[in-house]
């Protein structure tokens, strides 16, 4: 009950802020930026891998949100709508990152700390994460988005559906095809590596 109450208050405050912005109190948008900037930067990092690019993209995302606030239906939740604007923008931003090397080399993101204590294993994990990232980058955008949102952002399938405006079954189908392609790519790379 406490949690629902707290959520209710937060939702009311969020709607307050949106209402204020639409009535011309532009400064009220600060409330929305402060609440969601961490999430948006995190999402941008998952897509772009580079902190500087991610922060710039996150700022542009909030600008898009500000300009589109008129179109937000007050009976919907803000976060999935905000995420869908973010994903749309990140698609473009990702495409603009010039070369493949730029994209894959930019995995300097500070990830959640590994539980591994063995230094050799840490190096191996780093290498494996990098290989996975490269494989993710080869996916077509429709599959890559779902893979990033599910595995890198750890979003629920229903939320991914709301963000991308597709059905839950479609999300699951894209996850399946994404996993398959990743496995094929990584196995092929592994075979190449093992050749003399």
């Amino acid at each position, binding site marked *: 009950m406490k949690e629902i109450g707290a959520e209710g208050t937060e939702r*009311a405050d969020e709607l307050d802020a949106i*209402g204020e912005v639409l009535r011309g109190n532009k400064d009220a948008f600060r409330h929305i930026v402060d609440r969601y900037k961490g999430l948006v930067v995190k999402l941008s990092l998952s897509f772009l891998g580079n902190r500087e690019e991610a922060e710039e993209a996150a700022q542009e995302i909030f600008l898009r949100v500000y300009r589109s606030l008129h179109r937000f239906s007050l009976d919907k939740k803000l976060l999935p709508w905000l995420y869908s604007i973010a994903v749309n923008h990140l698609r473009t931003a990702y495409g603009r990152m010039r070369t493949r090397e730029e994209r894959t080399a930019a995995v300097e993101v500070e990830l959640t700390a590994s539980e591994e204590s063995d230094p050799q294993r840490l190096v191996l994990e780093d290498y494996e994460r990098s290989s996975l990232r490269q494989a993710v980058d080869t996916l077509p955008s429709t599959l890559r988005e779902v893979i990033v949102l599910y595995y890198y952002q750890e979003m629920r399938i229903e939320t991914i559906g709301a963000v991308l405006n597709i059905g839950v079954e479609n999300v699951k189908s894209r996850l399946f095809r994404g996993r398959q392609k990743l496995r094929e790519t990584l196995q092929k790379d592994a075979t190449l590596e093992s050749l003399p």
Partner: protein
Amino acid sequence: MKTSITAKCRSLSPTSMILFASLMLMAVASTSWSDLLGSWYASDPRAAVYSDARAEFSRIFSQAAREHVPQQILLNKLREGEAKGVPANTLVNSLRFELALLSRAKVILGRAGFGGTFLSPVADETVKDVEVYLRSGLPDQLVSNLLSASAARHAGKQAALAACGAIMDLRAVAPMEDADSLQIGKLLLASGLPPSGYGSLALVYGLGKSRGLSHDALVHDIIINTLRSGGGLAIMNRKIVSTPISEPLPPSPAAQLVPKQHPSTRELVSGKKINNR
């Protein structure tokens, strides 16, 4: 005996001279109005597409001139149709409808005492305002009643037009009954709220809907009752936000929200802290 016009003028009184000049102005004005259509055909190469409809257009513009309806607005509708590539007979029908709307707008303004005089005619923009409200579906009687109410309060037509605008926006998002629309319009005029603030009613309605309030509760309990008791948008906002949400929210996604750091806008509205409930 020959008398020149000049000689006759010299002998006229100032009042007669003014009357003569005004009649000249009328004649000149009528001529220039009908030139609007002619100059469109002459200057716009795409007007050639509508050469077969010229006679029909001319009849419509002449009628507009007789009814003292702003022909510039009619010409703009013509240009809009031409820009959108509308076929000639559709454009003729649309212009007739536009003329009918503008005529109705003039009658409504006239009845409320805002019809202007010959020497100080009602601004085209005012006629355009009313035409747009009628085009959006606001009933003639509603617009008329609000203009009359505004005139009765010596509030001028801008407040009434702003109230019509607010109702137009509200009706775009809510299934409003005409009686409720009129009541809200009149309460807005009596409220003392600045006309620039009238437009937020649609947002108030949207906010209430998002919290599960029914249409009736929003229209009667929140909007009408608040206006009736002298309250404004801030009180409507507070009433809505303090209403418990009627459905439980779905479970939140796995992501954690950043803690709120900005003061609640309820505090901003009232200017003082409100105790947590």
